[in-house]
């Protein structure tokens, strides 16, 4: 290389030029290439790593997304499940509050339920519409049949039968309007408020209604009102139900609103029918639905639509009413408003709920009474037995009878045939029972914590008072002088002193021939006075010292001669209450014998009455199967409980208040006794 450079200048220059440029040597190039390659390799591996990292991230994110989707699906499924449950509950509630009527759109819920995936949503919706359209079709009828069977099982069939027969009689014009069963009237109310507008449009008013019917309307109306509220309060809709009632009232209050709604009716007609459809789809009881809507918007067309949908649900009843030309009664509304404003909020909170059902009697129970202090109950039945129940009984394992139910602690045997009445001494130590055999048995009450299968102690039955020649229907025990009074269908009332050698003290014959005593009670404010009710609409106060009549209660004009089933004295005031076979409860003034108040209280005969120890509340039982709690002062119904099933034409036979605890009881022809506790406890 050096030789070559010395050869020529030009060459040298050239070489010089070449040396000024970078020296490309083989090794240098190779090194460079090597270097570059490694650099590339490094980058590549880094990219690879990065790519892998990214891929991992993508996988992770994809996994996460999948997880989220799963979660979402799960949640959707849960939502569907809850929706379904809610619908079932609403349907159930609806049936309860509307006396077993089919909810207007029961059919679609299974469809929605069976379509949890999004793909099938469209078909599900279509199905819903189809079902709505063909609601009167086979599936509806099938459902109805099923429901009917179910209702038969739980004993609602009688109610339905009753309702139906009332409807038929109504159609034939056999009954005044007031004779509709209360549940029916509950349904009918919305329809009526609807037809109200057209009525007032025609300048129609209610003078057409006779006095009797309108009086009965008033009575029933506030019952219905209470009904609706009570039933509502059983579930989550309580608040809504109440607000619904209130809104209706406000709405009715306002005459302007009334008029406006009337004019808007035509315009909203088409929209309304769409909305009805919507309401039906959502499977909400229409009343509640409309309450929600109204609460949310307070718009008249919506209220209107709520009513429309209600009518839709009870198409049949409405048609019948229209056919009958049944009109609205403004008194009803007035009473509603009055009632609500006037109502004591405390009173509303006290609701009685069933605590225990006592099953052990084999035939109709006729009488019941609580122990004065202990949570102990006595029941007397047509199976000839009297049973003692300890409601606080601890279940012991001594016995072989099985089950976890409350069993009677003691069974009293003393009467041949049905036992019809019983009374306890004020200390609860002695029990006196009267039976169809005409005898009064005096029992020592054994311990309420005893063993039901202890050996028989004949000393429990201390004495049998004989003398009556026919069935004994009522016994009462004097609170201070240990005397007993009995009423028998041998037409006499007898005064006894048990434990005395000659127990019969006095026999008081019937005041008129052909009438028989049915019920007796001592006057709380006058110790020597006795109350006696009779068949043929008669009742009087008797002086037990002389056996003479002190006062005859003046019933006024009464159609027929209904039997007075139960007479009770107010615990603190000179006031007497009588429940009659003519469905009426009457309040009498002991000082002058005049009637203070009378009201039709039940759909069928009132069989039993009980007053709480403070004299504030009245409990009534009727052969319509229900018991009702009344505010004595306002004479308004606070609660109705459907309590007992019918055997023949008897249902509830006895009701009772516990004298010192917050317990009430009812007993019926279905051989069951029930004990209720107040809901506030």
């Amino acid at each position: 290389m050096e030789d070559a450079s010395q050869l020529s200048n030009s060459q040298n220059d050239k070489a010089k030029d070449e040396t000024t440029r970078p020296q490309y040597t083989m090794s240098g190039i190779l090194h460079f290439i090597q270097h570059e390659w490694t650099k590339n390799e490094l980058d590549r591996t880094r990219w690879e790593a990065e790519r892998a990292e990214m891929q991992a991230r993508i996988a992770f994110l994809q996994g996460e997304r999948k997880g989220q989707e799963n979660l979402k699906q799960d949640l959707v499924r849960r939502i569907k499940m809850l929706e379904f449950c809610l619908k079932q509950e609403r349907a159930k509630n609806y049936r309860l509050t509307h006396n077993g009527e089919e909810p207007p759109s029961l059919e679609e819920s299974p469809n929605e339920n069976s379509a949890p995936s999004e793909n099938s949503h469209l078909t599900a919706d279509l199905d819903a519409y189809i079902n709505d359209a063909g609601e009167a079709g086979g599936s509806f009828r099938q459902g109805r049949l099923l429901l009917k069977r179910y209702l038969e099982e739980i004993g609602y069939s009688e109610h339905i039968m009753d309702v139906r027969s009332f409807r038929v009689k109504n159609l034939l014009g056999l009954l005044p309007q007031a004779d509709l069963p209360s549940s029916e009237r509950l349904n009918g109310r919305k329809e009526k408020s609807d037809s109200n507008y057209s009525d007032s449009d025609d300048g129609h008013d209610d003078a057409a209604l006779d006095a009797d019917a309108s009086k009965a309307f008033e009575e029933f109306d506030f019952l219905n009102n209470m009904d609706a509220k009570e039933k509502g309060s059983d579930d989550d809709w309580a608040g809504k139900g109440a607000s619904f009632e209130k809104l209706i009232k406000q709405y009715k209050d306002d005459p302007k609103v009334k008029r406006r709604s009337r004019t808007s009716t035509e315009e909203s007609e088409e929209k309304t029918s769409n909305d009805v459809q919507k309401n039906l789809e959502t499977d909400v009881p229409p009343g509640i639905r409309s309450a929600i809507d109204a609460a949310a918007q307070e718009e008249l067309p919506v209220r209107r639509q709520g009513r429309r949908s209600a009518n839709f649900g009870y198409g049949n009843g409405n048609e019948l009413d229209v056919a009958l030309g049944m009109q609205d009664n403004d008194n009803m509304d007035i009473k509603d408003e009055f009632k609500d404003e006037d109502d004591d909020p405390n009173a509303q909170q006290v609701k009685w709920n069933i605590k225990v059902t006592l099953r052990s009697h084999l035939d109709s129970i006729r009488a019941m009474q609580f122990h004065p202090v202990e949570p102990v109950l006595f029941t007397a039945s047509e199976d000839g037995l009297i049973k003692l129940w300890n409601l606080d009984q601890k279940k012991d394992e001594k016995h072989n009878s099985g089950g976890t139910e409350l069993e009677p602690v003691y069974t009293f045997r003393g009467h041949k045939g049905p036992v019809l009445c019983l009374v306890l001494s004020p200390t609860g130590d002695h029990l006196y029972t009267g039976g169809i055999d005409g005898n009064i048995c005096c029992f020592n009450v054994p311990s309420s914590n005893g063993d039901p299968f202890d050996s028989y102690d004949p000393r429990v039955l201390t004495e049998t008072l004989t003398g009556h020649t026919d069935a004994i229907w009522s016994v009462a025990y004097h609170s201070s002088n240990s005397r007993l009074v009995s009423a028998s269908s041998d037409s006499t009332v007898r005064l006894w002193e048990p434990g005395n050698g000659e127990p019969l003290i006095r026999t008081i014959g019937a005041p008129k021939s052909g009438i028989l005593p049915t019920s007796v009670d001592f006057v709380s404010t006058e110790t020597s006075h006795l109350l006696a009710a009779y068949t043929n609409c008669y009742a009087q106060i008797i002086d037990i010292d002389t056996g003479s009549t002190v006062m005859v209660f003046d019933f006024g004009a009464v159609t027929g001669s209904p039997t007075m089933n139960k007479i009770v004295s107010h615990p603190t005031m000179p006031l007497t209450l009588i429940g009659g076979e003519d469905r009426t409860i009457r309040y009498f003034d002991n000082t002058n014998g005049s009637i203070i108040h009378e009201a039709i209280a039940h759909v069928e005969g009132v069989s039993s009455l009980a007053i709480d120890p403070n004299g504030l509340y009245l409990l009534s039982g009727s052969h319509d199967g229900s018991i009702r709690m009344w505010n004595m002062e306002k004479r308004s119904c606070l609660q109705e409980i459907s309590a007992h099933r019918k055997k023949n034409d008897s249902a509830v036979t006895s009701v009772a208040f516990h004298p010192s605890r917050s317990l009430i009881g009812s007993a019926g022809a279905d051989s069951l006794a029930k004990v209720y506790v107040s809901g506030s406890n």
Partner: protein
Amino acid sequence: MTAATENRTVRRNGPGTKRADWNNWSPLAFEEMDSALNIQQYIQQTIKANPADVATILTPPLDQDEGVWKYEHLRQFCIELNGLALLLQRECIPETCQQMTATEQWIFLCAAHKNPNECPAIDYTRHTLDGAATLLNSNKYFPSRVNIKEISISKLGSVARRVYRIFSHAFFHHRKLFDEFENETHLCKRFTTYVSKYNLMQQEHLIVPILPNQQQQQQTTVQ
């Protein structure tokens, strides 16, 4: 009274009803009874019509579910047996009847207790009737009087077997009292026919010779 109540008979024993008028209303056809307790009503109605007509009383209405029919009849037997128990309460005392026996062959133990107990006859009677009432009202076995589970029907046999011993004890130890009761109610005759018809007890356990064929048997067998 309203038109509604005037138009039909009210089948109700209201306060003031005389003993003679008890349940004394025109009989109602079974199909007309629309209450859930129609079987009990029907059975009591046929008994009221003629307690001696055992065959009619035990003839179920058409298409009647046999389980419910048997159940309601047993219920009715237990109601009426309270009458016999009341009579026994008078003269069957532990001093004379220390054990529940009929013939000398068996001593019956009271099943009401956790460990079967050798109760005196009167206690056996009371405990058995009370236990039967509890069982027939049990939510577990008989939650409904409209539908009865197949498995619960087997319980009827054991109830029948136990309450029958009350008849047999009364027959063999308190014959006068038994005859008095039987003449009035024909209950043992009806019960024997019932358990035979529905095969609830074995024939050899039916030791009270109340039916004609039983009486013949007794004459032919040497005891």
